[in-house]
């Protein structure tokens, strides 16, 4: 009889289902995973160290590049930390804009997640539909910030500028005729809010379409149900947050429990799972998209009726507007000081957390009163979830590893930082 021994397999870092640069050393007994050892850090850019050497405002774009699937939520936690240290009041309109874009970001993230998760597990079509809707939301990003992904739109003290009155139009080209671009330009004929209003009215029906593709799909359920079960006790012990925790049946959502900005004025529900398997996490995220859609709608209605400033008028923190700067000495000095030396944040430390699409995203900053952070610590939700990988995949088949990576919704920009 030949000698039997366990087999060690390298999964990644160039595996398409590894969602980036995850290298995982799997110890296999036949096809059953005995141990998984994720090796991370292949995308480590030392964001925290870089932030210590940059002024406060210069690190905002770095935040976009952490979890590059939910850019504005990262900025949100960072800006909120600075605002709390400075004790700066954010104008109410800016708070609504932030909430609206947080929820747009959540839909963006979950759409990408459901598409790629489907792709990993074998549902090819899903990703095509998900990217069709992402296109509209990315256009909304572009309309406010000029960038389709890395927006740098939230700034300490508010948001960079107010919502635009018109959307960019498609131009006729040799690839797209006038007749083809007409329906695209029709929905883009009004302001950004009109465009988003149109989107939120369409989106619930599109979500129903997605569910007809996946929710009762036999193959989808065979791949997801009872795979990667996490009990509520283990989920707490492993520090899970966000959909991973809610999938295990614990109704914990920072937007409800520790509301920030204007979430306490929003009407929405928190979906909770029952068994804590991958399928429950899928259902939780699908329902979260519906709830986000509701929140976006409420924000649109409020923003239509309430114009106002979107940036703090404290010029020690936020730059004055260009017009005032060019006619007024005082404003010019403020602008010069802010853009050369940067703002000074009082000595102290703060931990600010937001309900990021993936879980609790936290920024812990220590300021010693300088124009740069003394220490910045990013608390990425995916890092904690991935650390539970070994526990979740043990005893599962090799093919289930892909399902579990997908259901954890990991992105290496934030895990490796």
């Amino acid at each position, binding site marked *: 009889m030949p000698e039997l021994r366990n087999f060690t397999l390298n999964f990644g870092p160039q595996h398409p289902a590894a969602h980036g640069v995850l290298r995982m050393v799997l110890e296999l007994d036949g096809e059953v995973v005995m141990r998984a050892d994720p090796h991370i850090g292949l995308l*480590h850019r030392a964001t925290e160290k870089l932030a210590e050497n*940059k002024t406060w405002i210069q690190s905002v774009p770095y935040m976009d590049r952490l979890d590059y699937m939910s850019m504005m939520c990262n900025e949100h936690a960072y800006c909120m930390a600075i605002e709390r240290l400075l004790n700066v009041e954010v104008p109410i309109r800016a708070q609504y804009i932030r909430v609206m874009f947080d929820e747009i970001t959540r839909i963006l993230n979950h759409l990408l997640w459901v598409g790629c998760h489907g792709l990993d597990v074998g549902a090819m079509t899903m990703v095509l539909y998900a990217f069709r809707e992402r296109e509209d939301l990315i256009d909304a990003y572009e309309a406010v910030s000029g960038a389709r992904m890395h927006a740098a739109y939230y700034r300490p003290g508010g948001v960079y500028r107010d919502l635009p009155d018109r959307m960019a139009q498609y131009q006729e080209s040799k690839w797209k005729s006038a007749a083809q671009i007409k329906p695209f330009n029709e929905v883009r004929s009004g302001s950004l809010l009109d465009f988003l209003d149109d989107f939120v009215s369409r989106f619930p029906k599109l979500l129903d379409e997605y569910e007809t593709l996946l929710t009762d799909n036999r193959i989808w359920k065979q791949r997801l149900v009872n795979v990667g079960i996490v009990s509520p006790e283990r989920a707490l012990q492993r*520090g899970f947050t966000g959909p991973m925790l809610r999938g295990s049946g614990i109704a914990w959502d920072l937007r409800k429990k520790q509301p920030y900005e204007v979430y306490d004025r929003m009407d929405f529900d928190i979906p909770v799972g029952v068994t804590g398997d991958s399928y429950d996490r899928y259902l939780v995220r699908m329902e979260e998209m519906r709830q986000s859609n509701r929140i976006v709608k409420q924000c649109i209605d409020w923003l239509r009726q309430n114009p106002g400033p979107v940036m703090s008028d404290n010029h020690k923190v936020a730059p004055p507007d260009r017009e005032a700067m060019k006619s007024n000495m005082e404003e010019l000095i403020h602008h010069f000081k802010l853009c050369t030396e940067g703002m000074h944040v009082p000595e102290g430390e703060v931990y600010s957390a937001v309900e990021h699409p993936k879980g609790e995203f*936290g920024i812990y900053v220590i300021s010693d009163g300088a124009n740069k952070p003394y220490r910045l610590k990013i608390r990425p939700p995916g890092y904690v979830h991935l650390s539970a990988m070994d526990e979740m995949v043990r005893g599962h088949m090799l093919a289930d590893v892909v399902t579990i990576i997908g259901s954890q919704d990991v992105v290496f920009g934030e895990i490796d930082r």
Partner: protein
Amino acid sequence: MSATLEALSQNLQKHLGDRVKSLKVALGEVTIEVDAADYLVVMQTLHDEPELCFEELIDLCGVDYSVYGNVQREGRRFAAVSQLLSISRNWRLRVRCFAPDDDFPSLPSVTSVWNSVNWFEREAFDLFGIVFPGHEDLRRILTDYGFIGHPFRKDFPISGYVEMRYDPEQQRVIYQPVTIEPREITPRIVREATYGNVDNA
């Protein structure tokens, strides 16, 4: 101080007593400092005691206090700072613990209390060189295989010591000393509290 923070501070005093070396409430957050000798006991109490009930450890990070406030500081240098969260009580706490020895910073591991701390302690070891006795698998996590040094210490240059490139002669990737010049666009400045204050002039 809000009622929740008041209750939390009282419960902390009640159950930890003089193990709490300092308790500070600022910006709506409670921070306690503990000695390294009490660290494990305190963390265990924070987790187990139903009146405190911190089920989740959200974050643990190393901090290097050596140049805090732009001056070289005396006294203990490395600390581990954890953020705790209680789901049932809906409150948060920050625990800071300084490592007694600067040359060989070491703190007991709390992996037995919260499993989620596993990778955070590995990270603090990797980036700051804080050792956690009791941790079962204290390997580097974020830096490269075979990396030398602890890059987040304040005396580690931001450009690092080595860079990597492909060498066409040897036909392989090699490490060599960094060739980039260190540069600082905006200097780091700490102003006195009254700076820019018009009333002061």
